[in-house]
């Protein structure tokens, strides 16, 4: 087996080992990575910047712990920005493993900013069947959620006195790791014309650029890179602090950079091996 065949047939465990080492070494010896802020992330940030105190923003948190590495930083950054600007938050969860994710964010961030449940934010909780829940919320939040997550009747919460449905909120930001985003686009934006921005995992990002182009969503935060961009903007705006270790996605960018370089090198290696071994097998001028 010559060199090119060896390149083609490299045992995948060597690839795992190299990537594992690269990630570990970069985690121990990080460095700064310059970040370019994309327009689709900036539009979400600028929209929240344009809101007035006491405006209500809805955040649909539809992800489970397995994707929190990419989506939790978005949730924290957006929530901190909103609470800093005294924007009220209405949160809900349409993923069965997500209620704890929302509670973790809201419990921690509300304490940082002395925000009161029922006055500055309301957490509606989780309901199954996202499509039906969103359709019902479009008529009245109380139909799917007669009580909030903590069992308090919505009508008894001061913040909910002026809120009936999507018409009373400025926008919806859906942070999702699964098919929940499709329901928000189809029902919240498609049926009720609610203003919608989304934060999704890296795997899903490419699927939603057509909706950004068509104007169905006004912003798209894609994957950990998108989360890092948002954290960078929020840090420059003074909403999150590097000293308090609140830039999680941003800190992971060196790891992303080095790992991607290694992956690219392996792809090049594999392709060189493929073409050279094919050339050797079939001759310089002959092709099968």
């Amino acid at each position, binding site marked *: 087996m010559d060199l090119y065949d060896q390149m083609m047939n490299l045992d*995948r465990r060597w690839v795992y080992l190299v990537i594992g080492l690269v990630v570990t070494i970069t985690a121990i010896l990080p460095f700064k990575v310059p970040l370019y802020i994309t327009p689709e992330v900036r539009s979400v940030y600028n929209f929240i910047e344009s809101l007035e105190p006491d405006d209500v923003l809805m955040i649909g948190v539809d992800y489970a712990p397995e994707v929190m590495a990419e989506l939790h930083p978005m949730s924290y950054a957006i929530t901190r920005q909103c609470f800093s600007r005294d924007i009220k938050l209405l949160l809900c969860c349409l993923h069965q493993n997500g209620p704890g994710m929302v509670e973790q964010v809201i419990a921690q961030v509300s304490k940082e900013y002395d925000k009161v449940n029922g006055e500055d934010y309301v957490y509606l909780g989780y309901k199954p069947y996202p499509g039906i829940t969103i359709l019902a919320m479009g008529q009245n939040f109380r139909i799917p959620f007669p009580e909030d997550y903590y069992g308090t009747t919505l009508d008894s919460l001061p913040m909910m006195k002026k809120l009936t449905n999507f018409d009373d909120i400025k926008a919806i930001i859906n942070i999702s790791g699964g098919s929940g985003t499709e329901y928000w686009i189809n029902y919240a934006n498609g049926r009720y014309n609610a203003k919608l921005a989304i934060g999704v995992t890296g795997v899903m990002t490419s*699927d939603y650029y057509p909706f950004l182009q068509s104007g169905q969503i006004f912003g798209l935060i894609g994957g950990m890179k998108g989360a890092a961009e948002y954290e960078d903007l929020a840090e420059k705006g003074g909403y999150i602090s590097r000293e308090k270790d609140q830039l999680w996605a941003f800190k992971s960018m060196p790891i992303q950079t080095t790992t991607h370089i290694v992956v690219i090198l392996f792809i090049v290696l594999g392709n060189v091996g493929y073409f050279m071994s094919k050339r050797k097998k079939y001759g310089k001028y002959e092709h099968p």
Partner: protein
Amino acid sequence: MSPICLFLFLWFDFNRINVLIILVIFFLFVLYFINQAKKGKSLFVRRIAGLDAIEEAVGRATEMGKPILYISGIEDMDNLQTVASMIILGNVAQMTATYDVPLLVPICRPFVVPVAEEAVKQGYSKAGRPDAYDKNNIRYISDEQFAYTAGVNGIMLRDRPAANLMFGSFFAESLIMAETGFSTGAIQVAGTANIHQLPFFVVACDYTVIGEELFATSAYLSKEPKLLGSLKGSDLAKFLIMIILILGALLETFGITKFSSWFFVR
């Protein structure tokens, strides 16, 4: 206001009349072609290149004297991709029966097992080999995604099938199965309409049936009027969309926006 006018005002959204018109046109296309297919009219559907790949895979398995592994995805029978997969399975079963190649079918959902058994049995009967049908080759593994994947990987590593055919709805397990199959040296043909998994199948398999081609393959093989009619109807709709797109882009280029604005949904 008269009751009819009041009814229309309260229940009919005139801002979306363009959606209604286009919906009715699409429905008419599909119904027309289903009707034509039921009347026995020959509806041309081009041969999908993936079918040649399947035949090559079966041929290779025959030469090597090793079994074929058929994976129908991880969704239940209410998923259209699983339905399409069962139609393809019947056709594959007919081929394997003809060449006397064992066909292994691990299943993820209990309700898919009787459908798969029926599809394989019919395939063997059509090939004139009902005696060769072995019910034990169609096995329920597990409902859990990665438990099923572990079971399928185990079959690949132990039985070393010559060909892996993966048609249906797949999620994160797609690359795990395709990689394991690749490592055993099997020829692999895959098809799914889950866009996220297509890149993984494209890199790890010898041939990939992309998206709608999966449904076209099942329509081509089954000649079922509803499937053929739906396919032809959607083809006509695509043709109409292409015309509208070209017209709209050209008119926009010359500053005429009235045409494209009709398609704007308020």
